[in-house]
């Protein structure tokens, strides 16, 4: 057999087609779902605060979209792995785990494109960030995205049934999105409860984004700690995912 050169782009495209393009073609309802969940909270926050918190809301929705990518990827991968045995077929192929996750990660971005575009438009109207502010928010989003994708992949490879993945999704969603003050400042949470919020890396991410826009005032030291926390958590999850994700079963 001649040694053919394999295209890693093909391998990434495969996941994007399977998990995003073909799925959206056939189930347009999924579009509505990815659009609806971050936007609905943004709208509620905006209404309840009489428009005061719209900037917080848009930033929060951006961070949540990045974080929820990993959560929904976890469900998708578990379904493809356990119900279709797609992962087994991919394991016995030249596509390695990193390429597989990368492709699936991109597929989640493709899925989120409509909501991302909408949020960027809203941001340019309502919060009008400078280039530096925009870059800071973008970086926060990227770090949170990598963190959640690594977490999602790790959890999905540990499942043997989609039912389990629903369990994981529920827990992770609460920890990362319900408890932490992503759509509003942490000062809105009464004191002892703030500590609970600090369990979630999304709290730190939101604080960086809010501080970048000048919505909250945070000390330099505090900001440095925020960055260290989210980058460390992200790296930890990437390492954990790389080491502990079950590509070949033990």
């Amino acid at each position, binding site marked *: 057999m001649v040694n053919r050169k394999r*295209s890693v782009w*093909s391998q990434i*495209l495969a996941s994007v087609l399977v998990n995003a393009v073909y799925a959206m073609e056939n189930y347009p309802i999924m579009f509505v779902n990815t659009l609806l969940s971050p936007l609905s909270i943004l709208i509620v926050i905006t209404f309840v605060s009489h428009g005061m918190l719209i900037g917080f809301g848009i930033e929060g929705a951006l961070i949540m979209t990045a974080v929820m990518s990993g959560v929904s990827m976890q469900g998708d991968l578990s379904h493809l792995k356990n119900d279709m045995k797609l992962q087994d*077929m991919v394991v016995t192929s030249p596509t390695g785990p990193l390429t597989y996750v990368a492709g699936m990660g991109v597929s989640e971005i493709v899925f989120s494109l409509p909501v991302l575009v909408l949020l960027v438009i809203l941001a340019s109207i309502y919060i009008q960030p400078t280039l530096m502010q925009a870059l800071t928010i973008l970086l926060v989003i990227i770090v949170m995205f990598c963190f959640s994708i690594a977490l999602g992949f790790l959890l999905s490879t540990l499942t043997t049934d989609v039912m389990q993945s629903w369990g994981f999704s529920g827990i992770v969603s609460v920890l990362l999105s319900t408890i932490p003050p992503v759509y509003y400042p942490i000062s809105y949470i009464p004191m002892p409860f703030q500590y609970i919020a600090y369990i979630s890396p999304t709290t730190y991410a939101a604080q960086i984004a809010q501080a970048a826009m000048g919505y909250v005032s945070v000390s330099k030291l505090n900001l440095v700690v925020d960055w260290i926390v989210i980058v460390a958590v992200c790296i930890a999850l990437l390492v954990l995912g790389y080491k502990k994700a079950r590509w070949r079963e033990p």
Partner: protein
Amino acid sequence: MNGIEVRNLSKTYDGRTYALRNVNIMFPERGILSIIGRNGAGKTTLIRILATELMPTSGSASVGGIDVVAKPAAAREIMAIVPQEARTIPWMTARQQVFSYLLYRGFPYSEAKERAVKSLKQLGLQKYTNKLSRLLSGGTKRKVMVATVLASEARVIFLDEPTTGLDPISRRELWQLLNKLKKEYLIVLTTHYLEEAEYLADTIAIMESGRIVAMGSMDELRKRAGQQYSVRVMDERRPKLPKGVRVVRFDGGYQVLTDRERAFAISNALMHEKARFSTNPVSLEDLFYYFAKRSINEDTEEQGDDEW
């Protein structure tokens, strides 16, 4: 050795379930190795270890000259699998299914597209090319899965029960295709259809409780069992038989399994008695009972008589 070489392979799940016990296999570079055995015998476990999906507990295995335990990445370049419970993805058409798999194998876009269409045609699936898989019948979906791996360049192909759910005609068609392919490929196939293994396999491995209890070509298995022929007597009265033959009672008669000479002698005697009987080469099913089930079916098994 560029085929399959398995040495003392064992697998224990959760330290309790002994799925494979000391399995040894030698198989050449090309041809079909068929693994048969009862539910839970360990066929899927063995295939998954060879396909680098599962770690063995102990022992070694190489496929195409590559150690699958130590060098999984290199092994994955040359092999492809249709897992036992693999399903086509409901929201994709047959073409999209094969196409996306070829992309995972790293084919460039246009080549993957061409190969996908060609492979579907090869399995007589051209009319389903653009049909969503959730609209296909169960057997057709199974065929699409087979088309998926056959479209690839892998030269070692694992098919875990590929013909389960296929109608008799489709099954024959797939047999013919595999028979052609086996000149170039190494195919490992599990099946519960014994005539399928008999028809296709160059080597048959019979598994029971995690062990390979017998392995070889049909002729080798017959020789090992010392049973070349089966004489079926359609009579409720048990005929008188020579010592050393294996007698299995079935509804309405007796089956005698034995070597060539004795089969000849028994047939001769039955002919004189004007008994209703038939004599055939021993089938894989008979051998399977002998090797895998001999202890389970003791109550219907008997021995020949002392005087004959």
